[in-house]
């Protein structure tokens, strides 16, 4: 069963805040994460399938999968003083990779890869007190050529069907976005207007529009990570988005959003 869907920002400055970051803004994003955490508890979730864009952590240039599923028993990651270890919902992970391949998606899978912060920053703030296993789902966002938004949307639609047919209560989470340009001249000038227009479309239940966006447009708008949202939108269709927060910092459009599938 697909019982809920959320998109969460994951910028590491939310976890380790340098003096450059507005503390009140960071705390407002944390408050939105806390709402997600309460919702996950209320939804009595059995597993969280989390779609994130690897920040060249699990996969370097030795092997760059477009779409990948983590099918190990547990996964671990580290960032500075933070150490994370999450159990994997292996039966669900295996069902996703097997049924995904069956449906025509040539998925990469791994049983051992470091977990990127794109996965554990949202989970740090949203994992219910009674922790649940996860299924990490990778989408390549940083190493061109990335999968097209259309491909991500189609994969999400298949993923949604697989999860809906699963007997347990599963939440789908997309980690990433919104506009930011790390490592480029545009770092201090994200495309906040683009983010707001997109959020308006999602609030109006027009999620399918993200599938029609080109990869070039996502790059131009600092939104290469919205491939994870496109994946989620494939699963939830045109459900209306409930935007918990949109907090533009000096370098990043921080959004937390829920869809009721």
């Amino acid at each position, binding site marked *: 069963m697909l019982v809920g869907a959320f998109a969460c920002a994951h910028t*590491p400055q*939310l*976890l*380790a*805040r*340098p*003096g450059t970051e507005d*503390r009140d803004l*960071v705390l407002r994003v*944390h408050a939105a994460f806390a709402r997600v955490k309460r919702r996950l508890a209320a939804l009595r979730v059995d597993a969280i399938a989390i779609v994130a864009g690897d*920040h*060249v*952590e699990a996969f*370097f*240039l030795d092997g760059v999968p477009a779409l990948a599923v983590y099918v190990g028993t547990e996964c671990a990651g*580290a960032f*500075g*003083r933070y150490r994370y270890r999450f159990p994997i919902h292996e039966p669900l992970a295996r069902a996703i990779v097997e049924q995904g391949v069956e449906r025509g998606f040539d998925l990469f899978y791994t049983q051992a890869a*470091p977990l990127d912060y794109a996965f554990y920053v949202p989970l*740090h*703030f949203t994992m219910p007190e009674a922790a649940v296993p996860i299924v990490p789902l990778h989408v390549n966002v*940083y*190493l*061109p*050529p990335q999968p097209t938004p259309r491909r991500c949307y189609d994969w999400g639609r298949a993923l949604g069907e697989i999860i809906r047919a699963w007997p347990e209560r599963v939440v789908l989470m997309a980690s990433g976005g919104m506009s930011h*340009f*790390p*490592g*480029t001249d*545009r*770092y201090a000038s994200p495309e906040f207007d683009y983010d707001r227009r997109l959020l308006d479309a999602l609030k109006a239940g027009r999620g399918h529009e993200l599938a029609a966006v080109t990869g*070039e447009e996502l*790059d*131009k708008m*600092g939104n*290469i990570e919205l491939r994870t949202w496109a994946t989620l939108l494939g699963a939830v269709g045109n459900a209306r988005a409930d935007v918990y927060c949109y907090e533009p910092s000096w370098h990043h459009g921080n959004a937390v959003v829920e869809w009721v599938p």
Partner: protein
Amino acid sequence: MSDLHYRFPPASAYRLNRCLFALKSDDDFRARFQKDAPAAIAAMGLDGEDAAALLGGDRDTLLARGAHPYLVFMADLRLKMEREPVSFEFF
């Protein structure tokens, strides 16, 4: 396509990107780099202009040599986090 912010990483920059990746993600390598940067990157097979670019730390020079912008950004942030840990608030 050449005006993309994130471009295909040229194969000529593989070793440079591998060093940046190690600075970002490998605590042991980062420690060796902090102690003796030229020796650490030489041990990774980086030499010549790539080595000079990495030691110089100038972003535009690194990008011109094919370094991935995100790797340059996060390698720098991870080094800063270790050099100035008190300036972070941890949640």
